[in-house]
């Protein structure tokens, strides 16, 4: 049946059939008595329907007709498409990001059965030591394991130093576990994982191969030098593979066995069980016949046997930490971004949905106005025999065509917007690399959103069109776009809703923006672009307990500071253990008189001029001097902050000896289980007190902090962060600083030189992103509302020209008329606000629950923000109403009445 019908899809076949049918009917009509055959046109029409493509034909006709109608009013079409495209594009962009972060499967074999291990203690951690990895392999053969570690690599090719590479050390099982095929050469396998330091081979990531080597296949066999050790390139990884960690993109893979060579700053982590460094992440697949529950049970059993216990030993209790092991699905990869951004992204998707809703209302309004203007056309078509459903369908099709075009534009917009967003999110910090190519899910979502939008704004005017009065077609008033009774119509209602929704958006955006402003430190000029930061991590800094090491580093650092301060344009330079916004794990034990045990206080190791460089005010006493720096002696010389004084000194003068605060000494307590406890030690020599700064955690009050010198601190690491305050432009200074730092140890990977402002921005990247996006959305919503309101007012004035003319003729003043239009505008906005303020309060409460950490020092329905938003909307109403009001007031009564 179908195959006989198919030819009728072809226009020429249909034309031939049509001719044939007409000829047959003519012949029959000639032979039958007149009138015998009835309505032949109808018979032909019904026969044509038997060809079975009437629907399709009508749809094509509707489409053609819609296209023609839209082309005829390009301004309307452009306005509708642009506002819809922004709404659809915003939704599509956010959905793309959510999809990439949350749902996209890793491009590896059978991602559903790939797992990663995590420890679950106070917080979830994915890091393990090499010894733990070996222990799992040996004692828990329930999985096939692989381990990997992100490393920064100092690379040189043909003797020339490359920019620092983002690399990955992987075990021999890594690529086989993922089931990847090389794009070129071979990948790393178990044979590259046998002897420490015995496998100087590397695999390039596809992207790096393309960019650095132009996709040259001769790269296999070439040598790349990593931290001074030559490696042979043996292959290239597949193009779509960016590692298990979503958001990062390793450029090079090397065997874990080469760790001592490529990580010269740390100790050999492969055979130092005494160093607890969780540098590896462990992935695995269940062995055949093993269930997930069985594997979990095996891990649990491991921790109960001392020989197989993999848990770290707490250095104070000397007992294994109470942590569990979790098997977590890695089908979508592992991502810190996911944890950080998924909730804000969903909230922003909701916001984008509201913007789209506003855009839909606008387009519906435009379509309504058009359909009113086209009443006559519809009436004529009805009179000529078009069915009401056909008219309705045509208006709906027009809407869908608009939505389709806007959807296509939206996809393009989203393509650009996602990249811009990711670039903004990774500015100032490590690059974020995400595979943002739109997949089926994104396209389906965008399609569905466009379709829904089309139906949403198309249905109102379609319903309107179906109620067109046939007899009214001839009536003169329709020719002049006069609205029937109830002249406010659905248009005003739509604008009321728009006002309400945009108030919600405005309040949200205002709360986010003000939270962000509260979070940016202003007390010190700490967010300055004039403070440069770079990490210094020379070889051997991973283990400063070697005799003489600390002194060697101290000499090196003081020399570095001298050299840096000699650069023209540098005001001061100093070193600190961590960068200002990095939470420091290092702590200082203190003992207080009359208090049992001790307290661990956050500590920061600093060189002189730290406080002046950072812009932290010295409240009392003095800064460290060169003299203090040289004393590793018994009396701890420290500075403290005001929080420390408040918490521990209880009114005693911190600068006078006898304040009672002591450094705590660990003592071995008696008993079967060896335990350390703190006992009193030497009194602290506090030489100065500084103002509480906003660092390291911007949203928390400064904790009591001790500032210590390098030689007095008892820590295993010797790496530091160089802080440089410059007088003006930082570009040239940054280059010189870079050179000096690289010269300290040319073999180690260089870290980025960035400014303190960059760090603040990076720490607030979520807040900035949410504030910026919600601000943009609110702005778009305002423009749309303004346009919508203007449209409704202008249209209503145009429809009431005669009435206004009559009023003017009967003695109304122009200001009466202006007031009439203003009242209409005010009525809409005030009704909108009345609906919007409660909605904003409710949504604010919901928002605060969802994004508690994004709202800072503000209550959900912050009255100031709400009032401000309402004011903004009122002024928007004034702006939108101005032109129609003036036009109404300038109506010439004579002309207006002559229209009849």
């Amino acid at each position: 049946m179908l195959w006989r019908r198919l030819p009728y899809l072809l226009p020429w076949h249909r034309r031939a059939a049509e001719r044939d049918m007409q000829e047959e009917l003519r012949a029959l009509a000639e032979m039958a008595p007149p009138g015998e055959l009835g309505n032949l046109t109808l018979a032909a029409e019904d026969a044509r329907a038997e060809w079975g493509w009437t629907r399709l034909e009508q749809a094509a006709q509707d489409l053609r007709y819609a296209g023609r109608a839209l082309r005829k009013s390009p301004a309307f079409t452009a306005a509708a498409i642009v506002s819809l495209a922004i709404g659809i594009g915003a939704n599509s962009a956010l959905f793309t990001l959510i999809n990439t972060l949350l749902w996209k499967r890793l491009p590896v074999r059978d991602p559903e059965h790939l797992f990663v291990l995590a420890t679950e203690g106070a917080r979830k951690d994915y890091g393990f030591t090499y010894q733990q990895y070996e222990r799992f392999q040996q004692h828990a053969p329930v999985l096939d394991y692989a381990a990997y570690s992100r490393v920064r690599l100092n690379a040189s090719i043909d003797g020339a130093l490359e920019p620092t590479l983002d690399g990955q050390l992987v075990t021999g099982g890594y690529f086989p576990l993922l089931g990847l095929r090389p794009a070129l050469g071979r990948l790393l396998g178990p044979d590259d994982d046998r002897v420490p330091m015995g496998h100087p081979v590397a695999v390039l990531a596809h992207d790096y191969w393309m960019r650095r080597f132009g996709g040259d296949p001769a790269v296999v066999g070439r040598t790349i030098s990593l931290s001074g050790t030559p490696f042979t390139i043996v292959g290239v990884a597949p193009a779509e593979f960016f590692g298990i960690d979503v958001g990062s993109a390793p450029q090079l893979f090397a065997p874990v066995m080469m760790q001592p060579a490529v990580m010269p700053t740390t100790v050999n982590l492969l055979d130092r069980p005494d160093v607890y460094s969780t540098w590896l992440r462990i992935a695995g697949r269940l062995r055949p016949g093993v269930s997930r529950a069985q594997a979990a049970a095996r891990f649990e059993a491991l921790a109960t046997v001392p020989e197989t216990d993999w848990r770290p030993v707490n250095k104070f209790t000397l007992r294994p930490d109470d942590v569990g092991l979790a098997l977590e699905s890695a089908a979508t990869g592992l991502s810190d971004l996911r944890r950080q951004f998924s909730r804000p992204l969903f909230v922003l998707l909701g916001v984008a949905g509201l913007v789209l809703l506003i855009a839909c209302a606008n387009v519906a309004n435009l379509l309504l106005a058009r359909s009113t203007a086209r009443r006559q056309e519809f009436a004529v078509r009805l009179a000529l025999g078009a069915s009401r459903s056909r008219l309705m369908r045509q208006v709906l099709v027009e809407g869908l065509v608009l939505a389709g075009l806007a959807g296509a534009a939206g996809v393009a917009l989203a393509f650009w917007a996602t990249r811009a967003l990711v670039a903004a999110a990774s500015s100032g910090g490590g690059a974020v690399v995400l595979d943002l190519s739109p997949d089926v899910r994104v396209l389906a979502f965008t399609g569905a959103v466009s379709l829904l939008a089309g139906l949403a704004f198309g249905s109102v005017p379609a319903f309107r069109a179906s109620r067109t009065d046939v007899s009214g077609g001839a009536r003169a008033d329709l020719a002049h776009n006069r609205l029937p009774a109830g002249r406010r119509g659905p248009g005003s209602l739509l604008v009321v809703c728009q006002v309400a929704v945009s108030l919600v958006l405005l309040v949200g955006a205002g709360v986010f923006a003000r939270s962000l402003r509260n979070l940016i430190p202003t007390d010190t000029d700490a967010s300055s672009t004039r403070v440069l930061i770079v990490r210094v991590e020379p070889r051997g800094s991973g283990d400063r307990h070697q005799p003489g090491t600390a002194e060697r580093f101290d000499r090196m650092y003081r020399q570095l500071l001298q050299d840096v301060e000699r650069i023209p344009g540098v005001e001061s330079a100093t070193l600190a253990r961590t960068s200002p916004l990095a939470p420091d794990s290092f702590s200082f034990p203190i003992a207080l008189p009359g208090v049992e045990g001790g307290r661990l206080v956050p500590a920061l190791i600093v060189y002189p001029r730290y406080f002046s460089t950072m812009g932290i005010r010295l409240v009392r006493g003095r800064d460290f001097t060169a003299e203090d720096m040289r004393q590793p002696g018994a009396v701890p010389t420290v500075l403290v902050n005001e929080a420390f004084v408040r918490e521990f000194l209880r009114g005693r003068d911190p600068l006078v000896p006898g304040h009672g605060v002591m450094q705590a000494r660990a003592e071995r307590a008696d008993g079967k289980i060896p335990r350390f406890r703190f006992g009193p030690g030497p009194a602290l020599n506090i030489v100065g007190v500084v103002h509480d700064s906003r660092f390291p955690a911007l949203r928390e009050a400064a904790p009591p902090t001790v500032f210590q010198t390098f030689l007095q601190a008892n820590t295993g690491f010797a790496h530091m962060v160089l802080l440089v305050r410059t007088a003006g432009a930082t570009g040239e200074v940054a280059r010189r600083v870079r050179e000096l730092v690289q010269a300290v140890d040319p073999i180690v990977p260089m870290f980025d030189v960035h400014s303190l402002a960059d760090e603040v921005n990076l720490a607030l990247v979520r807040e900035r992103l949410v504030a910026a996006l919600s601000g943009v959305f609110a702005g778009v919503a305002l423009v749309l509302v303004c346009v919508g309101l203007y449209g409704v007012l202008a249209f209503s004035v145009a429809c009431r020209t005669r009435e206004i003319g009559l009023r003017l003729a009967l003695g109304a003043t122009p200001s009466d008329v202006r007031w009439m239009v203003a009242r209409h505008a005010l009525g809409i906005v005030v009704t909108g606000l009345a609906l919007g303020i409660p909605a904003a309060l409710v949504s604010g409460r919901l928002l605060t629950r969802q994004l508690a950490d994004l709202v800072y020092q503000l209550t959900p329905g912050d009255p100031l923000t709400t009032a401000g938003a309402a004011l903004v909307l009122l002024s928007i109403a004034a702006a939108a109403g101005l032109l129609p009001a003036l036009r109404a007031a300038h109506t010439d009564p004579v002309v207006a009445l002559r229209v009849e």
Partner: protein
Amino acid sequence: MEALYGVLDMLILRTLLFGPLHGYGIAAAIRDSSDEALRIEFGSLYPALKRLELKGWISAKWETSERNRRVKVYRLTPEGRRRLREESSQWSSFVRAVGSIMKPKPGEAGS
């Protein structure tokens, strides 16, 4: 109702069993052979012809009539013949079923 739906189709097939006919001829033949009891509107008959042609139960061909006119003539295809056999057996069982229901019951005779 299933049986009634295809009645027109069945009548056309049945009419063509006696030989090929043109569109008007089929309408006239149905009317004549039912003693004018069944007057099929040409407006319904003609689309039905197209439908049967698309189903492949009848075929159409331009021919010259005895009065030297070019007309389109429909004839039964083997498949149409087979269909007709099925339809008529279904029809007679339908008629029997309806007839046994409509037969006047003893109690209500004469009403």
